[in-house]
């Protein structure tokens, strides 16, 4: 059976089906004779919850540490709270609520009370109450959720959808692979899987229905294939495929620390994209020569409130110091579109991808934007800092963003705080109008970075998440290729460099065209770095130029792709996909 292979690797293992259950509270009242029974149900659920929490506490204590286990102790204390349990019992007796409804009503009262207090600690306790309330209710109703934060053995996780927070809390060291029903090559799960180097297959229809817990699976994260309880023949042939695959990986390991220079001496830079400081090691391990895209959204998304300047400063400094003297391109907040922040109170939009996102949102929330700019400036003394603004539509926005950056510089000067005054400034090219006016914008910036995911979507007017029009969404589209060429040429005429931080840069066949067009920097998921480096080291720049000139005159992407494959074969270049 097939899905979309989004993160390469071949693994064998047992399935773990992750089912998230919804809690449905019955509004029905009970009769008076049932009060006692309802209270008993509640008491039993408390006992059960306490047992679960004690186990979690012990496990966390031995595997992670005393400090991390304390949260569960706090939960147990709340279950012991006579005010809380007493009120719940009172609601059952007085209002004849079902026990689950009583738990919900009382918990919500406490949550409201704690949430209004302007104190981070108290608000965190509101979350704790929500947690224990859910736990008690699930125990009353007999709802069993699969636990993904702790696996006893290595598993392949099967799910309908995996949200960024699911993957964050997952026990990743025991996850061999992901298989999910929802998602494609550019979805967040895919990007996450690639940076964690966990093989993944997404867009696999009915995965949670056709695969059961404990099924033996073979997952091929490159081809997107999943075999459920395969026969011996398949197992044997895949064992061979696996050893071939890992032999190639070894070959890549040998060249990854070398320069990305063509056989006729044209040098480019190969960098990595990261979402958190934790992803950095993987970029370094794979031979990345810089960070071409440091996404900063995760700082905002993993938090319940706006991250303050110090928290941001530390996250930027950490990466800059570790990469120094290699360049790090920090992209300012790109929220909106498919990524939302609860605490920001954003309006629902009819067309979020054409709405208030990224730099537009930052112009609306100037204080939030300036906090980030100040944090980046403060961190800039610790490494080779580049700042990049996303979703720029025209030169006016660049000037506006730079003005705000200058205001922050002035503030820091007055406060006597050090920063690098020559920090490099660039923009993402992802809106066609910016690509068309790259020659004008080039006068205002030090570099461009082409974001192909959005550039494709906006150029072809095709929503990348809509499966019905995804056939249009293609970075080999001749219109997209010509725009990219235009941007690179415009930047070189003005003496600035162009990089690319979209998924396209890590596409081995696309990278040949980009190299030929003169792209200066290729930034991609860490795991794509070695194979692109290998290709660049084996090809001649002259051949790549010739190839890209030819491609730019072709009519459709099918023709382009088969031409590249054939040409690489003629040039005797062995490609690892």
């Amino acid at each position, binding site marked *: 059976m097939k899905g979309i292979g989004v993160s390469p690797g071949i693994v064998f293992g047992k399935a773990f089906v992750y089912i998230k259950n919804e809690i449905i509270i019955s509004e029905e009242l009970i009769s008076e004779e049932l009060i006692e029974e309802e209270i008993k149900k509640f008491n039993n659920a408390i006992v059960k919850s306490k047992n679960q929490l004690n186990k979690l506490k012990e496990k966390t204590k031995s595997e992670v540490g005393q400090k991390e286990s304390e949260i569960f102790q*706090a939960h147990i*204390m709340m279950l012991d*709270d*006579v*005010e809380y349990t007493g009120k719940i019992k009172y609601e059952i007796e007085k209002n004849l609520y079902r026990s689950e409804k009583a738990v919900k009503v009382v918990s919500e009262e406490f949550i409201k009370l*704690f949430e209004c207090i302007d104190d981070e600690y*108290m608000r965190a*306790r509101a979350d704790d109450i929500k947690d224990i309330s859910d736990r008690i209710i699930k125990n009353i109703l007999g709802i069993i959720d699969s636990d993904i934060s702790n696996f006893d053995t290595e598993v392949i996780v099967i799910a309908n959808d995996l949200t960024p927070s699911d993957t964050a809390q997952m026990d990743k060291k025991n996850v061999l692979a992901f298989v999910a029903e929802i998602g494609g090559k550019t979805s967040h799960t895919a990007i996450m899987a690639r940076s964690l180097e966990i093989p993944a297959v997404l867009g696999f229809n009915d995965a949670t229905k056709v695969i059961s817990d404990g099924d033996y699976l073979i997952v091929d994260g490159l081809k997107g294939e999943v075999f459920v309880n395969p026969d011996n023949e398949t197992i044997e042939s895949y064992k061979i495929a696996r050893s071939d695959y890992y032999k190639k990986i070894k070959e890549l390991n040998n060249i990854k620390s070398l320069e990305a220079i063509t056989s006729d001496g044209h040098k480019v830079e190969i960098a990595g994209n990261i979402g958190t400081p934790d992803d950095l090691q993987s970029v370094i391990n794979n031979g990345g020569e810089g960070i071409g895209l440091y996404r900063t959204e995760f700082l905002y998304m993993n938090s319940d409130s706006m991250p303050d300047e110090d928290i941001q400063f530390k996250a930027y400094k950490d990466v800059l110091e570790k990469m120094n003297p290699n360049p790090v391109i920090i992209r300012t907040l790109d929220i909106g579109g498919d990524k939302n922040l609860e605490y920001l109170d954003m309006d629902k939009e009819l067309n979020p991808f054409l709405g208030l996102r990224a730099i537009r949102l930052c112009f609306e929330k100037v204080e939030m934007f300036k906090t980030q700019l100040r944090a980046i400036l403060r961190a800039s003394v610790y490494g080779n800092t580049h700042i990049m603004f996303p979703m720029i539509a025209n030169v006016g926005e660049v000037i506006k963003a730079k003005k705000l950056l200058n205001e922050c510089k002035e503030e820091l000067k007055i406060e006597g705080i050090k920063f690098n005054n020559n920090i490099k400034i660039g923009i993402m090219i992802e809106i066609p109008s910016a690509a068309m006016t790259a020659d004008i914008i080039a006068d205002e910036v030090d570099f461009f970075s082409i974001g192909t995911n959005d550039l494709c979507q906006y150029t072809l007017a095709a929503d990348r998440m809509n499966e019905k029009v995804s056939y249009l969404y293609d970075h080999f589209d001749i219109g997209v290729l010509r725009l990219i060429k235009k941007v690179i040429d415009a930047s070189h005429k003005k003496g600035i460099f162009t990089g690319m931080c979209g998924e396209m840069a890590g596409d081995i066949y696309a990278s040949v065209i980009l190299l030929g067009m003169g792209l200066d920097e290729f930034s991609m998921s860490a795991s794509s770095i070695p194979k692109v480096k290998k290709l660049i080291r084996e090809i001649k720049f002259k051949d790549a130029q010739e190839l890209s000139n030819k491609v730019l005159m072709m009519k459709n992407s099918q023709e382009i792709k088969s031409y590249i494959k054939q040409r690489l074969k003629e040039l005797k270049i062995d490609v690892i996909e």
Partner: protein
Amino acid sequence: MKREEVLINNESGLHARPASQFVKTAGMFKSDIFIEYNGKKINAKSILGVLSGGIVKGSKIFIQAEGEDEEEAVNELVNLIKDKLVD
């Protein structure tokens, strides 16, 4: 019934860790124990109650206990507040 007034003198008040320390200690006694603060009567054995009391440094509270071990309970809790709370 035993009742005694005490001044909250630790940095964070009856909040976070000090609050759970206080509630844990109160839970060891059989008596019913209450805090009187700002006109409110708070169950000393309830962590949610104590936390939502908002008892900060400098507050004056009454501790009141009723039951077979009321003497020890009040003495122990007053001692705890005076010099054993860990911020």
